């Protein structure tokens, strides 16, 4: 349920972006959600709908997900995060703070925890559309 806090951030960031572009109304908000964080999309969507301010009253929220791709800094190996290979507690911890992936996940090829999350971390505001 901390998805609510993330939704608040998205609304705040979209409002800021609209301000910058001098939009009176926001019609579309494109959001990208990385799978590493295992955000519950229906809760996120519900929260977004509840948090709508006036500017967003006709806004559609378009959510795309991105696979979480990890790359080892030691051996260069790339792989995709698979929640099923983790125990429940570890998966939940990563849900809150994706960086603790470095505690629970190791490079499947060389065993190093020194990998980069090259894609699929967190919630991003891709773009907004609206009317001036």
């Amino acid at each position, binding site marked *: 349920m901390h998805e609510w806090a993330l939704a*608040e*951030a998205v609304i705040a960031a979209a409002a800021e972006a609209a301000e910058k572009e001098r939009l009176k109304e926001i019609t579309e908000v494109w959001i990208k959600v990385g799978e590493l964080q295992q955000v519950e999309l229906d809760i996120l969507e519900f929260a977004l709908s509840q948090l709508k301010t006036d500017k967003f009253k006709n806004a559609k929220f378009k959510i795309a997900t991105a696979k979480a791709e990890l790359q080892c800094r030691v051996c260069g190996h790339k792989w995709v995060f698979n929640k099923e290979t983790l125990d429940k507690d570890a998966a939940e911890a990563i849900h809150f703070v*994706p*960086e603790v992936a470095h505690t629970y996940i190791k490079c499947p090829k060389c065993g190093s925890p020194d990998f980069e999350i090259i894609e699929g971390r967190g919630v991003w*505001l891709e773009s907004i559309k609206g009317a001036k």
Partner: protein
Amino acid sequence: MVDPRVSIIDERMRDIRKVIAVSSGKGGVGKSLIASILGLTLAKKGYKVGLFDLDFTSPSTHIILGIEGVQPKEDKGIIPPKVHGLEYMSIVYYSRDQATPLRGADVSNALIELLSITKWGKLDFLVLDMPPGIGDATLDLIRLIKKAEFLIVTTPSQLAFETVKKLASLLNGLRVPIVGVVENMKMNQSETIRQQTQKLGLTYLSGIPYDPNIEKTIGKTNRLLDTRFAKKVEQIVPSL
């Protein structure tokens, strides 16, 4: 593409009156002990206090405070549990106190994540236990929490004071408020650090003696508050 998290941090800090970052260029000077006891002391005085351990790769306030078996609640964000009167937040809730090797970019990301999802509510003081060095956590704090004030810890050693000078010069250059300097682990009555602190135009807040018995009180908050150490930390409060 925009990272939406930074847009909500001001809102999360809105009802916090003062943010005190206990810091020092140097490690091992007593930042964590001072941050913990300062938190406890303020709470005992009736203030609403949060304590946030930002030393993600080597957290220690949970050991000092003997905190185990608690977890934040989830309610439209995460709500730090109240332990010994403190709203207490640490990465150990998620790392389970296992080795957590993090590069600077990861430290930055974890910090921003926790700042954006943690709901502190109304606080008089949020005490931050900072990692050593002048790196991602310190720079992000300066960047993201405009109301943060720094409490700088040194020891009587030249080695520590040199790094304090560097930190102070960085903060001064950016007009970030410095509450003052605490000299910890004093072995004698030397006034050197007091004088050098004042020469830098900074307030000398307290001189805490080296106390060989402090180790035995670690993990036991009542006993921690009974030490001379705690009495000396209390001297800082009026300056906050």
